């Protein structure tokens, strides 16, 4: 469904992505984890062609999105729903209008149908009764969920999430996890999830990729991921109190 082939990206002298290759199958939930500044968001932006690789190729289906332009690009992008790291809500529209925006701009649905669809998506992300609030009046977590509702509202076949659960309380986080999982099961949606949250990565991911300093260190199934022998992956896991046996343990240094 999505295929990156040796994607390399420089920001000036700084090599942000170094020959990143992976393929995401249809119906998969592909999770990308990594330290802050490792290049996760940059990878996601390459998939949707907000960035163009300096070297390498990005395919969506059979189409080479890294070279698409104009109407072709628009058609490819229509297959995606994207949740940005900062939610990227339009500040002058209220919650309802933000979520309704793609419907209003790109479909000919009636107002009643739009209202129904928006209400459905907002309730899926546990947001009801804040239709009239402006983005500036929302908490970071609420904003994120509005962004999520907007990403889902067109019922896309591929959804890219940039940290869907960061800034959310654990209960809402798990609800979002379930939402992602449900869409995979019920609608066969393909997802690419960037997250720091290893719990959700392990819970929803069909495969987990670890990016470190612009390189893919490891791609494996969740069960294999926690048993990885890679030092950096181990360090990453231990930092979140996850050991190789998958047991929740307090790391020794944390109690000191």
């Amino acid at each position, binding site marked *: 469904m999505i295929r990156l082939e040796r994607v390399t990206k420089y920001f000036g002298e700084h090599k942000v992505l170094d020959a990143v290759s992976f393929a995401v199958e249809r119906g998969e939930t592909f999770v990308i984890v990594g330290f802050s500044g490792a290049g996760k968001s940059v990878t996601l932006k390459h998939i949707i062609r907000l960035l163009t690789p300096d070297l390498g190729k990005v395919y969506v289906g059979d189409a080479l999105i890294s070279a698409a332009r104009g109407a072709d690009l628009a058609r490819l992008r229509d297959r995606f729903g994207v949740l940005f790291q900062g939610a990227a809500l339009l500040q002058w529209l209220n919650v*309802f209008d933000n979520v309704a925006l793609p419907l209003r701009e790109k479909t000919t649905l009636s*107002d009643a149908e739009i*209202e129904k669809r928006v209400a459905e998506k907002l309730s899926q992300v546990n947001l009801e009764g804040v239709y*009239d609030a402006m983005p500036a009046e929302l908490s970071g977590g609420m904003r994120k969920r509005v962004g999520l509702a907007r990403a889902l509202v067109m019922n896309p076949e591929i959804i890219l999430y940039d940290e869907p659960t960061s800034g959310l309380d654990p209960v809402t986080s798990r609800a979002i996890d379930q939402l992602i999982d449900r869409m995979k099961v019920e609608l066969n949606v393909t997802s690419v999830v960037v997250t720091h949250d290893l719990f959700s990565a392990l819970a929803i991911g069909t495969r987990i990729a670890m990016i470190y300093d612009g390189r893919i260190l490891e791609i494996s199934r969740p069960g294999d991921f926690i048993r990885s022998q890679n030092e950096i992956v181990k360090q990453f896991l231990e930092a979140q109190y996850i050991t190789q046996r998958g047991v929740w343990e307090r790391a020794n240094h944390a109690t000191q």
Partner: protein
Amino acid sequence: MRRNRLRELSLEVTVGTFMFVALLSLCVFTIILSRENVFRKAYPFEVIFDDVIGLRDGDNVVIRGMTIGKVKAMVLQDDGVRVVSALRRPVRLKKDYKIEVVISSVLGGRYLQISEGAAGAEDLPAGEIVRGQPPNDIMALVSGVAADLKDITGKINAGQGTLGKLVNDEALYNDARAVVGELKMAIKDRGLINNLETSLANLNEITDKINRGEGTLGLLISDESLYLEAKQLIGDIRATVDDMRETSPIVTFSSIFFGAF
């Protein structure tokens, strides 16, 4: 949602009203600026000039001091400029009609003056081409006289000229004195441009005569005061001309920055 719709409606009304009022006043203003009375019947009037000395579309047409219409268009022709004006009432020209472009202000205002002619005179036959008076350019007049006077006083100073012939003509001497007086008054009151114009015309005549060798040059020479006055006069006329020249930079400046005349 409903709340939004209401707000949008009041927006629509505000913006719509504003634009409607603005466009309406724009239309009204356009009509005002074109200085045309759209609702009244206009009588066309054509006259041909050799030179219209800066007459413009929209300038007034005046009969005996009363504005009766506007200049509508001017067309360049082989034999001059055809000025078409629209009048509010018809004019009946006599044989001795006189039509001229009059300068109404130093800053360049002009109007078209029509004198129909004496009441008793014969009517102008229909279809006859109406011709306007050739212009008399005040600036040219002023500088012309100044040059002439300079010339004469120069000659006087040098003691040249047909003195003997001139000594006798008392009348011309008096004439010159009167003109100088008149001219001085005219220059003092700068508004009285028309006065100045006639004075200058008179003076021109005199200096011409003097140049041609007629007149009381002898008297001119013996009368120290008149001589001095004549000298003074040249200075005054120069000052007037300079003043007028000084006006032009203001006008130019205005036209560049403030827009102008």
